[in-house]
């Protein structure tokens, strides 16, 4: 039990921290609209993985990538507004997810929807650590270019930055991290782990350093709080991580005013 608790804690810290850090770049409406639905696309994959007994991470990654390609094709074919396509993909993803979810097995249903990090084993924890560290290092390296593309695409292009390429790297990183977060918070809520820490950091940061690393730190703190609270209350850790994040966000609003 103690080992399980530590594996869960370590995984949660890595996933929560890197998800928060990635979220600090999701600042424009456009990026939020692309990144958000990627999160929702995880649900059908999680359901598939539970039904056919394979790794939920792989299941989520599979449907996120397929769904991402679908959104991309739809956008080219229809030239419809991103908002509309987002709604379409989100609804379809949730509908598909519920269609294949194993309703007869309550525990599996709960795991699919809100996650169960306590089931994570040693090798999965190692995988989490490696993937999260790798993505953190990649994003940290290209952070200035990504941020410039987000702040002012024209300025980035005038600097010869291949905006499409960097956006693609960013979205691919989001996809991998979202697929990781499903262990922690299930198929319905990954977006929360990406969005909440950055919103909190933004409230109390005076500069970019505080903001970007604040997002990471708040992600880590929420993860630790959630895991410990879950240990005490026996509620699912994922839900408590998100609620902890929300409480910290509320505190940040109060601090912002003063």
């Amino acid at each position, binding site marked *: 039990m103690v080992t399980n608790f530590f594996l869960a804690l370590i995984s949660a810290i890595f996933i929560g921290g890197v998800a928060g850090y990635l979220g600090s770049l999701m600042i424009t409406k456009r990026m939020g609209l692309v990144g958000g639905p990627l999160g929702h696309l995880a649900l059908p994959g999680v359901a598939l993985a539970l039904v056919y007994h394979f790794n939920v991470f792989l299941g989520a990654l599979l449907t996120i990538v397929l769904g991402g390609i679908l959104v991309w094709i739809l956008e080219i074919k229809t030239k419809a507004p991103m908002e509309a396509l987002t709604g379409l993909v989100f609804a379809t993803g949730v509908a598909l997810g519920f269609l294949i979810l194993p309703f007869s097995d309550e525990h599996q249903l709960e795991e699919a929807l809100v996650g169960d990090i306590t089931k994570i084993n040693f090798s999965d924890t190692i995988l989490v650590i490696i993937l999260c560290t790798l993505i953190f290092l990649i994003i940290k390296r290209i952070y*200035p270019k990504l941020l*410039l593309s987000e*702040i002012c695409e*024209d300025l980035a*292009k005038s600097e010869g930055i291949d905006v499409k390429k960097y956006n693609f790297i960013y979205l691919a990183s989001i996809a991998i991290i979202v697929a990781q977060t499903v262990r922690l918070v299930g198929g319905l809520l990954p977006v929360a782990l990406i969005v909440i820490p950055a919103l909190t950091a933004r409230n109390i*940061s005076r*500069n970019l*350093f*505080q903001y970007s690393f604040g997002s990471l730190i708040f992600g880590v703190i929420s993860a630790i709080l959630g895991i410990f609270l879950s240990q005490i209350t026996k509620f699912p850790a994922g839900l408590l991580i998100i609620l902890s994040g929300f409480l910290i966000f509320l505190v940040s609003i109060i601090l912002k005013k003063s």
Partner: protein
Amino acid sequence: MKMAGTILKVENLNVKLDDELIICNLSFEVKRGEVLTILGPNGAGKTVLLKTLLGIFPFEGKIEWEKGIKIGYVPQRVPFVKDFPISIEEFFKLKTKDEKEIREVLKLVGFKEGFLKKNLGELSSGQYQRILVAWALIGNPDVLLFDEPTTGIDISGEETIYQLLERLKKEKNLTIILVTHDLSVVFKFSDYVICLNKCPICQGKPKETVTPESLSKLYGQEIKFYEHYHGH
């Protein structure tokens, strides 16, 4: 460094965005050290022209920059910075890690070093524009492309944005291409003017080119009039 010579040659430039013709049949040349202004009403394709010169939009025709030329771009506005936590220093560091150069360009546009710690959102629009100019100056460009310098707002010290550009031009031997509404800028500051309303209405030296007749063609009439005008 070459002192004279053509730095940019544009021939029969046509730009179509989403099947709409934005710029038609534009040809001009810019020599090193010149100031070219692009004058025209809203929606005339001025900003599109700058972005096409920067290589952001696809085009038909020819755009030929001198080999190895370095271009600095000052956009009209940067939408997200106002409420985003980023210091001026960090904004510069998105482009260069060279702190000495950052201090140099900051001084060049008339700010003290302590300014670097300020948040970008705290700046007045005039200060902000200066920071964007300084940002463009990093990397020592030969050419500055400037979209709609705003006049008359915030003069920290006594220098207007045009006096600043005039000084930079002399100190750095800059070639400047700028988009403007402001007629006095065209007369006082520029060597060559293009009146643009999708198609070029007139182009040449400001005093010979910008006349009441050409202005009424540029601002006063419908596109139909131009077609008629070109027909003759």
